[in-house]
């Protein structure tokens, strides 16, 4: 029994508990938080290394054998997602040292963030669909707390919409799990993969599959269920918005990928066609929504939606290359999007607003920041040789391969429109002079940012930008990682064997209708 898959869940909980217990001292809390995030990253990398060399790792909680107990499974996809969660977590914690005010730290920003990371890691690692629901809830309740932390009017307003729609999705997910259990008699995902073909009523199964699409669709903010996202993501402090934009919707996408490769593959002609339509429409509406916005964070929020479309597109094509693209996109996008949010926060600190019309002049006064914006922005739009280029290239090749012309055309046009939004931000925030005529530099400007703060704010951005460049320049290993993940997703034999034992996929026993 390996403990490796358990640590990414346990470390954030322990960090959060210690963080709460030392709550009276913000300094101590910050130290604990940074240490915990660092450890999480280490645990993620250790897990990744193990999976890379030894294949899928599965472990049974409480030593109860699968399919009865709760299984934690780490395949390549889960492992890489945990690593990325660690990176984002650490970046946001460091950024938060300068961005989150004392009041919010005292209210428990750091412990709450670690609870969120715990939920995210749990969702990536669990091999049980009901347990996935529980991790979603852990994630959700801590995201609620983070969203209203501090209690500004704007935050409450955004939170109402966020909470309302996410709770509906939660209940839908729960009902779908209940119906799925009624049909199959099991909740273990590997076991579900085995039992699904033996279910008599395949039509009902498809109906349940669609319920899952809707439930995860709300979580991952796809068309037409995305309204909560641009209504709420720009309201909390930037550090929180960055972790939301990087991780939360991606957990929804991960859940879609997991369920629609492992469980619901009985009628791909129907379910995956729906997904393809969703993908195309999500890309278009997201990017058009962004074009209509004039506030930096809201533009970025709408771009999250349009990018989700690309990830779902790879899944919907359901070819090896398509899934490679999805996984690559997922990894690249978490880094890039969180980074862009962090940049918007620094821009706000220096110029005093997020509104494009009210700010400007950053190119002259903070050229390094301008460079740090350009890298993720170009990567988001898909310029070579950055990470986004490869992600888009693979997806488009996957689309061409199965001659799905219109989705390819949509993806390319949406890429162009992404450049439009990015140049809009570039022009108004960096290029044009500041409308109030002052020089928004970190050391001389009217909104001074201390050296220590500026360093803490830009260091995570620089590191993540560097990672974007590295993924772009040395795409080989990352592509292989995505390829391995996709292979595991398309042929879950290894996954099932790791969870249920090597001979689980023998002649299908008639225990399918286990009632």
């Amino acid at each position, binding site marked *: 029994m390996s403990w490796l898959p358990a640590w990414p869940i346990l470390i954030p909980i322990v960090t959060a508990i210690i963080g709460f217990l030392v709550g009276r001292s913000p300094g101590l809390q910050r130290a604990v938080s940074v240490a915990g995030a660092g450890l999480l990253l280490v645990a993620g990398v250790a897990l990744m290394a193990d999976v890379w060399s030894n294949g899928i790792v599965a472990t049974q909680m409480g030593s109860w054998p699968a399919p009865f107990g709760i299984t934690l499974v780490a395949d390549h996809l889960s492992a890489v997602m945990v690593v990325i969660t660690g990176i984002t977590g650490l970046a946001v914690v460091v950024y938060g040292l300068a961005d989150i005010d004392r009041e919010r730290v005292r209210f428990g920003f750091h412990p709450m963030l670690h609870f969120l990371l715990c939920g995210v890691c749990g969702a990536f690692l669990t091999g049980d669909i009901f347990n996935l629901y529980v991790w979603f*809830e852990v994630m959700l309740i801590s995201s609620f707390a983070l969203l209203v932390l501090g209690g500004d*009017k704007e935050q*409450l*307003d955004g939170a109402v*919409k966020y909470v309302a729609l996410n709770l509906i999705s939660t*209940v839908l997910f729960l009902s779908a799990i*209940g119906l799925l259990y009624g049909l199959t008699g099991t909740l273990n995902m590997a076991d579900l993969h085995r039992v699904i073909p033996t279910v008599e009523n395949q039509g009902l199964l498809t109906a349940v599959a669609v319920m899952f699409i809707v439930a995860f669709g709300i979580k991952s903010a796809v068309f037409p269920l995305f309204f909560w996202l641009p209504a709420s993501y720009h309201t909390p402090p930037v550090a929180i918005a960055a972790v939301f934009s990087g991780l939360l919707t991606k957990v929804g996408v991960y859940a879609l990928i997991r369920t629609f490769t492992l469980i619901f593959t009985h009628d791909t002609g129907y379910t995956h066609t729906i997904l393809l339509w969703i993908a195309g429409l999500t890309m278009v509406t997201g990017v058009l929504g962004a074009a209509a916005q004039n506030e930096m964070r809201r533009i970025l929020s709408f771009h999250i939606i349009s990018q989700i479309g690309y990830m779902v597109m790879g899944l919907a094509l359901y070819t090896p290359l398509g899934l490679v693209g999805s996984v690559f996109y997922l990894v690249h996008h978490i880094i890039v999007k969180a980074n862009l949010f962090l940049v918007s926060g620094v821009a706000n600190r220096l110029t005093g607003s997020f509104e494009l019309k009210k700010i400007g002049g950053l190119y002259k006064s903070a050229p390094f920041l301008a460079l740090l914006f350009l890298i993720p922005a170009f990567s988001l739009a898909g310029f070579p040789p950055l990470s986004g280029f490869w992600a888009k290239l693979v997806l488009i090749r996957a689309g061409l391969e199965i001659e799905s012309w219109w989705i390819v055309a949509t993806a390319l046009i949406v890429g162009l429109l992404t450049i439009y939004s990015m140049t809009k931000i570039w022009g108004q925030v960096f290029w044009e002079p500041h409308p109030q005529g002052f020089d928004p530099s970190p050391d001389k400007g009217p909104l001074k940012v201390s050296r220590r703060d500026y360093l803490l704010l830009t260091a995570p951005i620089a590191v993540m930008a560097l990672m974007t460049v590295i993924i772009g320049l040395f795409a080989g290993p990352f592509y292989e990682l995505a390829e391995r993940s996709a292979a595991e997703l398309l042929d879950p034999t290894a996954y099932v064997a790791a969870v249920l034992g090597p001979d689980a996929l023998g002649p299908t026993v008639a225990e399918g209708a286990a009632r």
Partner: protein
Amino acid sequence: METVLAVTVGVLVAATVYLMLSRNLVKFVFGLMLLSNAANLTIFSAGGLIRGEPPLVPEGSYVPDGVVANALPQALILTAIVISFGLLAFALVLAYRAYQELGTVDTDEMRIAEPRPEPRTPAPAGKGTAA
């Protein structure tokens, strides 16, 4: 018995939809409460119903005696109840706080995070009128 439960779930969901279509945030939260109960009943009935046979293992034995009710759906429901209890408590408190801060429970009136776009007519700069 399943039929009765199925109808109950249907009625609960219908009531939920009615409540959720309201702009009133409090009604929405009430709808959510009904909906989570409907979900729990769905799990309960989907898991199969057996009357009057509690899944208890008799003294000195390791397996239950004969056919007993499925305990798993009940465990799932218990978990779901605990979770929805927490979430609904949060939702209620949030609704209350939002009312205190924003002065309304009408979701259409909550426009602080998403202000209405300014009218497109180009106003002459400098000549501020009390529009």
